[in-house]
C-alpha cells in the first residue's frame, strides 16, 4: 500500500499521469533512490536561492549605479558642451584685437550656461579643471594653435577674468590674449557620481571631468545676418499699403522685398510667403515711425523663410502676428503686448535696391506709318492700317504703325505699334514684339476679354500721344513725367483673362514702365480682377516709379513684380499666389538670378 502511493507521487512530480499498469510495474530500486534523494536535498535549495538572490541583488545594484553614473556622465558632457559654446559665442561677439584685457565675460558666459543646464549646484562645477587631486575654476583657451586631441590649452582664464599659462599659475589681466586670437574655447566640468548602492558597502564616488571644446568661428561683432535672400517675386521699391479687411499679399516663388514701409490699415490682412522664401522690409518710417505698422487686429506678417524689418514695428491693436522662420527687427517694437512676435535679433536688413536700375529701356520699331485714331467695330471696313474680315466685320488686324488712339470692339489682332491709348472691348491678340504707349495707355473696359500673345513687351512711357518720353536708365536725379503728361497705365476695368507671355532671354519684361512714369495707378486692377488663361503670364512687371493699385483680386500678375508701390483700396483683395507664379519661358533666367 505504501509503495503504491509513492509511485503515484513520483508520477505526479513528472507531471504526467501514466496508465495504472505502468505505475504498478515500477521497479523497487527506483522507488528507494527517490526517497533517499528527496530527503538529502531538503534545505539546500533555499540556501542556494537566498545566496543567488543576494548575488543578483548585488549585480542589480551595480547595474543601477552604473546606469545612473552613465546618465550623470552624459549630462555633464552636455553641460560642458553648452558652456564651451557659450564661451565661443562670447569670443565671436567680442572680437577685440587688443591683448591684455579682462576675459571675465568669457568666463561668466561659461558659468551662466553651465548653471542653467543644472551644474554649479551640488558636486557639479564648471568651468573647473581637474589636475591630479586638485581642481581649479578656470576656462580654457587655445590661441597659438588650434585644439587637437590631447593638446593642452594655451591660456587658462580664472574667475576674475585674469589669465595664466597654467591652471595653477599666477593669474593676471595683462597675460590675457586678444579675443581675436582665440581659436578654441574649453569648458571643463568637475563632478562626482553619487553611487547610492555602492555607498552602502563603503564604495567611493567616481570623478567625472568631461571637457568639451568649441571652435571660435565667424567675424564677430554681432549676430550672423539672417536677412532674406533677395530672390524676390514681389519687389516693391516704395511701400505697401493695405486699406481693406482681409487683404493679402503673398508669394511662393520668391521673397517679398519692400524698400519702404508696410502699412496695415485694418484687420485680417496678411503679407506672407511660402516655400521657405523670406520677407524683407527696409522700412522707411513714413507712418508712425515704423517700418511695419500694424493698425488692425489679426493682421499677419508670416515669412516662411527669414523675416527682416528695419525701422521698427508698431502695433496699434492686438491679436496680430509678425513671424518668420528666423527674424531680425531693428528699431523699436511698440505695442507688442497682446500680439505675437517671433523671437528676433536686431540686425539691420541689407538695403534693397532696384536690380533692374541699369537695364536699358526696351528698343522698338513701330514703323513710320502714321495710322491716326482707329476704331475697330463691326461697321469697320478695310482702310489704312486696318484690315477687317466679314461684312459686317467679325474680326480685324492692325498693322504696325503710330496710332494716336485705338478702340477695338471686335476680336482683333495687332502688330507691334506705338499708340497713345488702346481701349479694349473684345478679345485682342498681340503679335510678337514691343508695344509702346506714349499716352494714357491700355484700358480694358469690358468684361470677359482675353488678351493673348507671346514674345511680348509693353513699354509704358510718358508722353502725350505723339511721342514717347523716356528717362533712359535710372539715376538719382531722374525726374518724373511732366505733370501734364501722366505716365501710361494698364487699366483692367473688367474681368480679364491674361494669356500674355513675355520674351525669352535673361530677365524678360512683359510690362516695362519707364522710370519717369510715376503713375501711382500704373497697373490698375479695377473691377473683377485678372485670371490666368491657358498659360500663366510670364515675364516681369517692372515699374520702378509706378504703382499697382488694386480694387480687385489678381492671382494672375506678371511675375516677378518689381513696382514702386502697391495700394489696396478695398477688402479681401488677394495679390499673388502661395504656390509661386513664376513660370518663365525656357532659356530665360528665373527670379533667383534677378536679385541677389
Amino acid at each position, binding site marked *: 500500500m505504501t509503495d503504491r502511493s509513492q509511485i503515484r507521487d513520483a508520477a505526479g512530480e513528472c507531471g504526467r499521469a501514466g496508465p495504472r499498469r505502468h505505475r504498478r510495474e515500477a521497479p523497487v530500486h527506483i522507488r528507494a533512490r527517490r526517497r533517499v534523494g528527496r530527503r538529502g536535498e531538503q534545505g539546500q535549495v533555499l540556501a542556494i536561492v537566498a545566496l543567488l538572490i543576494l548575488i543578483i541583488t548585488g549585480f542589480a545594484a551595480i547595474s543601477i549605479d552604473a546606469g545612473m553614473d552613465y546618465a550623470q556622465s552624459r549630462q555633464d558632457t552636455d553641460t560642458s558642451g*553648452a558652456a564651451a559654446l557659450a564661451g565661443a559665442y562670447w569670443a565671436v561677439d567680442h572680437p577685440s584685437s587688443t591683448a591684455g584685457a579682462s576675459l571675465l565675460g568669457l568666463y561668466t558666459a561659461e558659468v551662466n550656461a553651465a548653471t542653467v543646464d543644472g*551644474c554649479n549646484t551640488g558636486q557639479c562645477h564648471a568651468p573647473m579643471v581637474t589636475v591630479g587631486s586638485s581642481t581649479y575654476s578656470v576656462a580654457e583657451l587655445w590661441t597659438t594653435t588650434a585644439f587637437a586631441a590631447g593638446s593642452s590649452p594655451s591660456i587658462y582664464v580664472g574667475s576674475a577674468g585674469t589669465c595664466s599659462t597654467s591652471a595653477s599659475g599666477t593669474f593676471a589681466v595683462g597675460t590675457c590674449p586678444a579675443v581675436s586670437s582665440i581659436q578654441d574655447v574649453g569648458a571643463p566640468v568637475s563632478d562626482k557620481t553619487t553611487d547610492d548602492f555602492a555607498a552602502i558597502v563603503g564604495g567611493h564616488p567616481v570623478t567625472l571631468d568631461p571637457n568639451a571644446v568649441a571652435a571660435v568661428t565667424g567675424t564677430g561683432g554681432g549676430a550672423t545676418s539672417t536677412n532674406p535672400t533677395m530672390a524676390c517675386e514681389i519687389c516693391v521699391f516704395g511701400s505697401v499699403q493695405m486699406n481693406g479687411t482681409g487683404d493679402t499679399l503673398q508669394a511662393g516663388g520668391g521673397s517679398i522685398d519692400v524698400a519702404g514701409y508696410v502699412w496695415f490699415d485694418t484687420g485680417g490682412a496678411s503679407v506672407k510667403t511660402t516655400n521657405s522664401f523670406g520677407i524683407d522690409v527696409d522700412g522707411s518710417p513714413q507712418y508712425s515711425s515704423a517700418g511695419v505698422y500694424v493698425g488692425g487686429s489679426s493682421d499677419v506678417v508670416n515669412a516662411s523663410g527669414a523675416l527682416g524689418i528695419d525701422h521698427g514695428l508698431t502695433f496699434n491693436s492686438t491679436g496680430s*502676428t509678425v513671424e518668420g*522662420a*528666423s527674424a531680425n527687427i531693428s528699431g523699436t517694437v511698440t505695442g507688442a503686448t497682446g500680439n505675437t512676435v517671433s523671437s*528676433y535679433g536686431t540686425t539691420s536688413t541689407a538695403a534693397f535696391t532696384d536690380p533692374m536700375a541699369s537695364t536699358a529701356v526696351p528698343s522698338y520699331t513701330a514703323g513710320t506709318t502714321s495710322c491716326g485714331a482707329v476704331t475697330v467695330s463691326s461697321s469697320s471696313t478695310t482702310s489704312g492700317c486696318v484690315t477687317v474680315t466679314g461684312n459686317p466685320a467679325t474680326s480685324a488686324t492692325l498693322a504696325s504703325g503710330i496710332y494716336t488712339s485705338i478702340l477695338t470692339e471686335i476680336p482683333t489682332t495687332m502688330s507691334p505699334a506705338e499708340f497713345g491709348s488702346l481701349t479694349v472691348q473684345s478679345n485682342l491678340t498681340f503679335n510678337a514684339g514691343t508695344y509702346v504707349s506714349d499716352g494714357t495707355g491700355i484700358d480694358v473696359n469690358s468684361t470677359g476679354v482675353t488678351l493673348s500673345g507671346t514674345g511680348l513687351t509693353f513699354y509704358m512711357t510718358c508722353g502725350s500721344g505723339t511721342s514717347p518720353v523716356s528717362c533712359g536708365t535710372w539715376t538719382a536725379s531722374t525726374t518724373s513725367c511732366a505733370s501734364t503728361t501722366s505716365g501710361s497705365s494698364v487699366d483692367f476695368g473688367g474681368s480679364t483673362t491674361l494669356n500674355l507671355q513675355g520674351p525669352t532671354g535673361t530677365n524678360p519684361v512683359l510690362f516695362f514702365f519707364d522710370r519717369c512714369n510715376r503713375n501711382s495707378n500704373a497697373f490698375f486692377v479695377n473691377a473683377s480682377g485678372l485670371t490666368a488663361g491657358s498659360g500663366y503670364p510670364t515675364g516681369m512687371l517692372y515699374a520702378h516709379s509706378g504703382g499697382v493699385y488694386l480694387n480687385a483680386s489678381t492671382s494672375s500678375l506678371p511675375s516677378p513684380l518689381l513696382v514702386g508701390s502697391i495700394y489696396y483700396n478695398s477688402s479681401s483683395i488677394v495679390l499673388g499666389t502661395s504656390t509661386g507664379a513664376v513660370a518663365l519661358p525656357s532659356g530665360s533666367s528665373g527670379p533667383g538670378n534677378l536679385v541677389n
Partner: protein
Amino acid sequence: MTELALCLPLLLLFSVSAIGVGYAEETANDLATVVQDGARYASLDPASYGCTGGATATNCSASTIQGVIQAEANSVNASAGGVTLANYNCLWSGSASPPALAGSPASPATPTNASGSCMTIAYYASNASGTAACAYYQTATSAFTNVNSGTCTATSSTSTPVYVEVIVAVAQSATGNPVVVLMSGLHITPLMTRSYSMEVAP
C-alpha cells in the same frame, strides 16, 4: 516544487525588471541626444517653429525645431521603431507662462495625447534677478508667445544672454517597455523626461 514556486516569480521579476530598466536607460539616453540636438538647432534658428499640424502633429517640417526634434527621436533606436514625439506642450495647456529655468524640467505633465509624448521649447532671458522666461511655443496657435516682450533678444553672451530649454517626455507605455506591462495593472504610466538648456547664439 514548493521552492520552484517561490523562486520563479522572483526570478521572473528580476529578469523583467532588468530588461525594463535597461530599456528605460536606453530611452533616456536617446532622449538626451534628442534634447541636445533640438536645443542646438533652436539656439541657432530660434524662430523656426512653424509646425502647422497643431499639438498632435508628429511629422512637423524638417526645417522647424519641432521637426528636428521629432526626426531625431525617430532615428534613435531605429531598430525598435524609434520614438514618436508629438508637438504637444509638456508643461502648459497653452496659456500659462513657463516656469523658472532651473536646470531640470519642471514637472512635465503626463502627455494625454494619443502617442503619450510631448515637447517643450522655451526661451529665457537674463535679468538682474536671474533668468526669466521670455518666449515659449504654444501648440494651440502654432506660434511663440513673447512673455516679456523686448527682452528675448540675444545680443551678448554676458550682458543679455538668452537661453533655450528643450524638454521632451515620453510615457513608457508608448515605448513598449515590458515593465509597463506589469505596471499597467496598477495604473502606473511612468514618464521618461529629459531636458537640455543652452545659450542662444547672439
